[in-house]
């Protein structure tokens, strides 16, 4: 399974965490499409804690974290 974690406004209507069977997504972009998230709404995409892009591959056991544009200090 691949774990997808949603944060900030991306939680709206999607909850906090969900699991996706690994065979149903080969890239992070596949997951964005599955959850109907336009790539431009994702400012930070982490695969296992490292900044990644939609075209990066995902595999069984990965944790994907999705954040909209946010800042702080």
């Amino acid at each position: 399974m691949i774990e997808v974690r949603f944060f900030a406004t991306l939680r709206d209507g999607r909850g906090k965490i969900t699991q996706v069977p690994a065979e149903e997504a080969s890239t992070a972009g596949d997951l964005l499409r599955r959850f109907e998230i336009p790539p431009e709404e994702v400012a930070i995409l982490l695969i296992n804690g490292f900044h990644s892009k939609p075209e990066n591959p995902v595999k069984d056991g990965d944790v994907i974290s999705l954040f909209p544009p946010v800042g702080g200090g």
Partner: protein
Amino acid sequence: MSDAYYEKIARINLTTGEIKVEPLDLETAKKFIGGRGLGTKILYDEGVATVDPLSPENKLVYITGPMTGSNSPSSGRYMVVTKSPLTGMIACANSGGIWGAKLKFAGWDALIVEGQAPDWCYLNIEDDKIEILDAREYLGVLSEELDDKLKEKHGAECSVLNIGPAGEKQVLLAAVMNDKDRAAGRSGTGAVMGSKKLKAIVVKATRKQLDVIADVDALKEANKRALKILSDNGVTGQGLRALGTAVLVNIINGIGALPTKNWQESYCPTADQFSGETLAEKYLKKPGACYHCPIACGRVINHGDKVVGGPEYEPLWAYGSDCGNDDLYTIDECNRLCNEYGLDAIGVPCTIAAAMELYQRGYIKEEECAGVPLEWGSKEALVEWTKRMGDPETELDWLMSSGSARLCEHYGHPEYSMSVKKQEIPAYDARAIQGIGINYATANCGAAHVRGYMISPEVLGLPQQLDRTVTTDKAAWAKTFQDLTAVIDSMGNCLFTSFALGAQEYADLLNAATGTSWTVEQLLEIGDRIYNIERMFNKAAGMKPEDDRLPKRLLTEPITNGPSKGMLSQLPLTLPEYYAARGWVNAFPTDETLKKLGLDECVGK
């Protein structure tokens, strides 16, 4: 006057009661912009670097920037510049709210407070008039209550800056508070106010806007452009208003850089329980904004039967994972207590975290804890020790209120103090994010995130995404961020505008307001000049090259858990690159660098 300065400084000697009005040296003001830059220049020239920070010889400069009170975005900032009793070096604590704008509207670019009052007093400013009034009846009064009392006395339209019990007792982690929940929080500026027996400064102004702008039309245009950029930007237009800085909890934890249990770990599995998302869901009443701020990152929260200022990311982390706690209500309560006692809401919880590690390892004994053991995650300990640090009585109260460096030194284990220059490090693990470590090590005020916020490019991807794990080019980035930050601080705008605005926008705003014609390169050179005069202040104050260092833990103990497991700070690689970029040798500017920056007064020193 038509250059965004009122060209007037009040010098208030509390020993003699004398109040002098001095003209602002406009040429010097423009060379250092104002605020942080000009405040440091004044203190450097007046020889404050060598004085005892808690003696009458130290001076407090409350200073605005040329943009403070203007219609430019997020322009309510003022700074408290002094010699820090915590670090023994330059302190420049920056705060928002509306107090700074009102000081400017009253016609003052800055107040210089010196000496020591014979008994507790406060300043009452109504436009040109400044009077020193008796504050003895307000001794021991908490900060928010005092704000109410002084408004009752002087009118609801005034704005109040004050210290709580912590400042009165010269606690080294004491903050200067204004407008109830805004803080010039770091480096112990509140203790300096306390040492002068100055409890508060009340400001009332007839003027409601700045009427000394050099080119009103040009500023209007520059403002319009800046506001559009801020509004169109996902961070400044929506993100910060929706979730505040607290949104960072999950992001920084997500990359494995959220220090946990005094940096023994860097990932907290339960972080979502004290995240911005949870804060918004459970307690948020509405966003809060400082003077003329379109961003509105502040949190106004429901807290029991009260409505109070809510925690920023820093106290959420520091009272949260850093102390092994994930109870959000307790964090809200501790944050409120910091505001009431007038405490640095970073330094205090980080010191509690250090004490908890000393307790974990058996160096602090249970019998020293006066009934409240310093156990990880103890809600009672967090609340009770915050109160004790705000109004210390026992030996351990006093030690803890002096910060983690002095506390850990006392117990013979300085390595457990996660501080630089005796000031606690903020909420980003420098082993997982290489550039922020350069900034922590070299910030002139001691460890700070808001001197060169490398989290922007290394984590948030602003203005572009850098790889957080590598050192390449990080020294040059850190220097540029530090220089631009010095400019923004000195202008009197909020640093958060820089999530969207670039150096050109700041140049346009400043040039329109002050009649200058700085290019971006010239503006960054001013930032460099400010950074260098701060460094020369520190040199005169006795700073040593080894003070530009990170705690041993970050250099020798790899991260133990989470996504960044195994990482260490590579500061030994990046620091020489940083010094080369600055034109420094062994942590200090060469004479050639000083001459190039027009700091002839520092040459040979």
